[in-house]
């Protein structure tokens, strides 16, 4: 199935070739979890501070169990803040 992977800030280096404006549509296996996707692009888990699926926060303890659905967007940031 297809999902959209968005890696922001200093994580853009982990995006597969072909990404545009910090995002790319990728194919993942049915039943893939958030952590499966993170590992598939060799993104160190410790860099994944803020993880959102469809804009909703996924806590570290839920990343192994939150299954991605067709068409969903997974967005990840390292530690960031502002104001």
């Amino acid at each position: 199935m297809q999902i959209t992977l968005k890696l922001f800030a200093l994580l853009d280096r982990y995006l597969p070739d072909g990404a545009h404006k910090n995002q790319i549509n990728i194919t993942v296996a049915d039943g893939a979890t958030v952590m499966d996707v993170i590992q598939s692009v060799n993104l160190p888990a410790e860099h994944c501070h803020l993880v959102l699926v469809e804009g909703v926060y996924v806590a570290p303890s839920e990343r192994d169990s939150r299954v991605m659905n067709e068409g969903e967007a997974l967005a990840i940031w390292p530690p960031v803040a502002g104001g």
Partner: protein
Amino acid sequence: MSWAKRILRVNLTAGTCKEEPLNMEWANQYLGQRGLATKYLTEEIDPKVDPLSPDNKMIIATGPLTGTAASTSARWSVITKGALTGAIACSNSGGFFGAELKFAGWDMIIFEGKSPKPVYLLVQDDEAKLIDASNYWGRSVWETEKGLKAEHQDPQLRVASIGVAGEVGVKYAGVINDLHRAAGRSGVGTVMGSKNLKAIAVRGTLGVAVNDPEAFLKATNEAKAVLAENGVTGEGLSALGTQVLMNVINESGALPTRNHRDIQFESASDISGEAMLEPRRSDGKPNLTRNGACFGCTIACGRISTIDPTHYTVKDREQYQMASGGLEYEAAWALGAATGIKDIDALTFANFICNEQGFDPISFGATVGAAMELFEMGVITTKETDGLDLTWGNAEALTTLAELTGRGEGFGAEIGLGSKRLTEKYGHPELSMSVKGQEFPAYDARGIQGMGLTYATSNRGACHLRSYTVASEILGIPEKTDPLSSDGKAGLVIAFQDATGAVDSAGLCVFTTFAWSMDNIAPQIDAALEGDWSVERLLEIGERIWNLERKFNMDAGFTGKDDTLPKRLLKDAAKTGPAKGKVSELGKMLPEYYALRGWTPDGVPTNETLDRLVL
């Protein structure tokens, strides 16, 4: 100790500068800067005074840590009754000016009265004098700072000044120091202009002593290590600055767009921190030239940017092709998402003009957004705008209006009124996205519930810097809470408000609190000052300051009815994103907040609360 224990009182009407001792009893009760200056102001002015009357006063204040070796010790504030709001105003800035004032041996400057002609104040260590500013009146912040340094043959002179916006009465004019650092909000520059005070130029060589140097170095070094080792303050903020939030807040469904009609901006990525790093086609350089730091700062979040030299705003104007203070998140949002404009060079240019002429890009951009909605409705037309097409997303309209507003000319004079006065004038006050007359910053109260309560109760009008619950609700600092739930948000907002009051009053930057708790801050203050400064004492001071500001506003005529939000946020549900279908649950949070604050159901601090806080 780190107080000079000296105040400079400048009577602009009489043209005098006098020294007086700092009231140490008040310093012990209110810490410094925001808290201490608010105490002075509330003791010295009638809360009902017209903000632009000579009877209003304007205080330049430092904190006990300003100018010391503590990280982020650059902070200073302007405290007055705000021209935009008629409420208590405390506008905080960084740069180098505040530390320089401390080096000159002054904790605070109180300006009173009104000069019969334009003047500037020159402070060189112990000496202070008012000097004719006729040559600078009508000139920009940038021209004024350059001119004063040349006139006094001192490139190390630090200058805080108003631009033409402050002279012509733009309601949200700011005081700009070090070219692009701003005490930007609430119209503190408008008050300065009303007093015929163009600038304050300071050179200090005396330094700042601390009470226990050994303990101070230990505390500040340990605290700096905490900043360096934290992912946000050690790396994230220096790399992308506050602008990293553009995509965060948009993805979270809380980016107010087109005057808060929408909650996500389809072009957010084009005006984001990431976009500022993208090499452009014309010269292969990115918008971001480098990061920058204020005095003593080990975070260095500032953005120094250049505009594409082929862009329409600067291609024939070489003076704007230099690197200068670039887009921070709040400005990029107001100039961009609030107006539907995705041209990052146009936003950068408008931001440059805000710095050059001294006015707040948040209130300016939000007011242009309100005008664009009025234009779309046909309430205003090209007849009122002098031919400007205020269609959503029109970059040229924004940049033209920035220049006109900065000079108070044409339709820019109306934009300079702020959104409340502008929309009232045209019969649609519901289109002003503001609280107490001050425009919202860049977080939608429907998508981040705590921010709705933050805005409604903010003593200086809508503001994110009085209680930045975004840290908890979106970023998970210090711990994650659900942005879509209003449960527990009253207590969260109060905790942020009280802690921020203490941080501001110390002379530190609130960005330290992404890494520091009060346990990191208290030892630094304790070593700098005489006496015992515990976390509990600092939080009590924060609460005291909050209630003092509240009391001033109530005496000025505000009531609990002013603790509200525009109907759009209370009635019109968010259309997209995680908050789809939600409105602000202010009606649930506000009574909880009043009760936890020890206020009546009408929002009035009880005598018991005031007695407990020694107010």
